């Protein structure tokens, strides 16, 4: 989380993108010059199934206000089944976070193909908007990591 000079809340957002679909989708939205907020930062992973729940918790600990995971559409996984596992893991993890009273909208999974540059930008815009509405992450923060 960072506050810009006029103290308007600018969330920190981490986006995990699978190398074959979503990361390429992100590149495409760049190639098409489709805007989305600069506070969205992408981390490239081979497949959505590489994303360990610990990474997501880690992001929140380190100051992220929202975390989104993007992968190939179900059935299109480069590794055939990776996103199916990711889907179950994230569903359960998000459900648990919600159960612990952590705002459920801070986490999201979207399937974005390499051809969906527009969808990628749109997704990031809506997610960033959502997180800005939610405000700073307080319920899963680690005070030691605050400035």
């Amino acid at each position, binding site marked *: 989380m960072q506050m810009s000079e006029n103290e308007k809340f600018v969330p920190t957002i981490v986006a995990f993108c699978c190398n074959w679909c979503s990361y390429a989708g992100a590149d495409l939205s760049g190639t098409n010059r489709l805007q989305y907020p600069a506070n969205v930062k992408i981390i490239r992973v081979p497949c959505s199934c590489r994303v360990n729940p610990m990474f997501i918790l880690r992001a929140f600990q*380190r*100051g992220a206000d929202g975390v989104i995971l993007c992968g190939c559409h179900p059935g299109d996984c480069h590794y055939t089944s990776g996103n199916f596992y990711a889907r179950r893991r994230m569903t359960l993890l998000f459900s648990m976070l919600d159960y612990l009273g952590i705002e459920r909208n801070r986490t999201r999974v979207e399937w974005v193909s390499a051809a969906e540059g527009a969808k990628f930008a749109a997704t990031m815009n809506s997610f960033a908007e959502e997180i800005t509405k939610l405000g700073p992450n307080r319920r899963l923060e680690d005070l*030691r*990591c*605050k*400035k």
Partner: protein
Amino acid sequence: MKYIAKSDLNLFLAAAAKAMKVYVPVDNTSGKADYKLWSEGTVVSGALHTTRSAKDFFFPQTENLVEFKIDHKKIDIIDPREERENFAIFGVRACDVRSFDILDRVFLSEPVDTYYKNRREHSLIISMSCDHPHETCFCSAFGIDSSEPAGDVVFTTAAEGYYVSAKTEKGEKFLADIGYAFEEKDESGAEEAKAKTKEIMARLPLAKLETSAFGAGKTKEFFNRPEWSELSEACLGCGTCTFVCPTCQCYDIRDFKTNTGVRRFRCWDSCMYSDFTKMAGGNPRLTQKERFRQRFMHKLVYYPENNDGIFGCVGCGRCLASCPIHMNIVKVMKKLTEESK
């Protein structure tokens, strides 16, 4: 002698709270008690024990030692300590009061642990005698009289109220400062209460627990006893006993990478943990048996050896109540002395 009715207790605490922060045992949602900062409306728990002992006040589970602020290639060192204000701990039982002496001998002997000392010096201990001990109590085995606890100020529990007396100058001064108007009653009531407690203590199942076999110089006698294997076989290697223990004083020092640098902190460690004695060269205690033995040998032999024969256990019984598999120091002592009986 000073006397206060149980119903008036909050008035006294209110007065005390004006002088300094006062921590009192309070029931929590799980039906157990923790120390909480007293404020108007706080209800003092009637529980015999808090789950975590009062040692937390001087030796907290985690504590920052130093912080390194790293700005690119520049490093500043920051000391997180700030001067502490005075505080009082109310309702400390005789066993826990004794535990402070045991900790002092470790932390206040050279080299002095200034973090610990700092807190200790700012504290005031308001102890309370027991009137309803549990079957797990065996403080008497270590020469502790739960009817006559040490401390700066002592509350002797009677049926309807408490007889209050200061045991130290600090205590005298405190009572004078807060200027609470106690009732005056003659000693007899207090003596009655003490006698009653003593009488119950004598009837407790562990009242006759024998400690004479242990103490300084007994290392050879107990270290290689075969019983250790059997005693430790069910041990899960968790830290419950050590963490609820008022006298366990082991800690680990760790670094935490913050977003701006590194925070070096210490946190409780347990000799029951498999990595407790892990070193670059390996681990001298490879099996749970050795770790288990260490804990009890320390309480019953090593500590007395280094501290004028004083045992490292105060018989509060917390570990008896909370060990997941109900293995504990009492079973150990009995097993190791079985034959000699």
